[in-house]
């Protein structure tokens, strides 16, 4: 029995995965609660929600959907590359994911900017004067839900940054892929939430 025990290298991929999934469950229920608030208010203010949703730009929303779907694929592929021990490919794919996430945020910045120029933002005098209560509710939910989602994109960027650094350093590799796998799971969660946000806010008018 000459097993070498590394005291400093406690590594439990199964445990990390369960931990990440439990965290994802809390995130799903957090957004789930917001989706329920949205559906109830939509049910109670159907006409106002219909009117307000026409304000949103479907093209920008669709573009961001495509960006997130592609980025989900690239981070999933980077896990495959890591397992195949193709370090350079792993890094490039993760960097592409990172850039796509940034582009998503830039789009969001301009999208929100246009809304602000039109006087649509939480607490605006224009909204209080011109809009019905239902429309104010719609835009309130729009800013809270897409804003919370955008915060998750920022968190995703930070996690990807850590993963990139650790892959480059060599502490995340084919036999210790947990950090990259969990970054991937988190990123897919962000994608998953957007899959529902997009039709609910941009498509159903």
């Amino acid at each position, binding site marked *: 029995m000459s097993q070498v025990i590394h005291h400093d290298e406690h*590594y439990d*991929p*199964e445990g990390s*995965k*369960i931990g990440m*999934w439990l965290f994802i*469950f809390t995130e*799903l*229920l957090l957004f*789930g609660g917001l989706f*329920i608030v949205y*559906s*109830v208010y939509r*049910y*109670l203010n159907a006409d106002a929600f219909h009117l307000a949703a026409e304000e949103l730009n*479907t093209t920008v929303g*669709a573009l961001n*959907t*495509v960006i997130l*779907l*592609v980025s*989900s*694929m690239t981070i*999933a*592929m980077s*896990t*495959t590359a890591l*397992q*195949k021990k193709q370090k350079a490919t792993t890094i490039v794919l993760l960097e592409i994911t990172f850039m796509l996430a940034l582009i998503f945020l830039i789009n969001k910045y301009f999208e929100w900017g246009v809304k602000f120029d039109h006087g649509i933002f939480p607490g605006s005098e224009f909204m209080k004067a011109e809009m019905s209560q239902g429309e104010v509710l719609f835009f309130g939910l729009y800013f809270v839900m897409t804003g919370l989602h955008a915060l998750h994109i920022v968190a995703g960027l930070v996690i990807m940054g850590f993963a990139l650094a650790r892959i480059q350093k060599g502490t995340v590799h084919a036999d210790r*892929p947990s950090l990259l*796998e969990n970054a*991937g*799971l988190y990123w*897919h969660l962000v*994608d*998953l939430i957007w*899959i*529902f946000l*997009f*039709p*609910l806010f941009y*498509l*159903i*008018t």
Partner: protein
Amino acid sequence: MENEKHHIVPYRLYAIILLILLSLTFLSIEITRINLGAFTVAGALLLASIKSSLVLVYFMHLKFDKAYIQIMVGMVILLFIAVVLVTFFDYYFR
């Protein structure tokens, strides 16, 4: 410690899933352009559910995970659906 090898998902599978996801996205944009009343909401939500299950099963590796993780995910989804149903029963019969 972990001797069992990870299942390596080929690049091609991810690319195919992406293509399906993109086509479903454009399909849902087209469907919601036609005014079908209540069916628009139902159609968009149905397509979103199909898309999210593809992401869960393939991108998030659930297909290759152990059964207990799959069961836990399923239970969370069921819990969410139950809460939605209870909420709407409450509002509908008020």
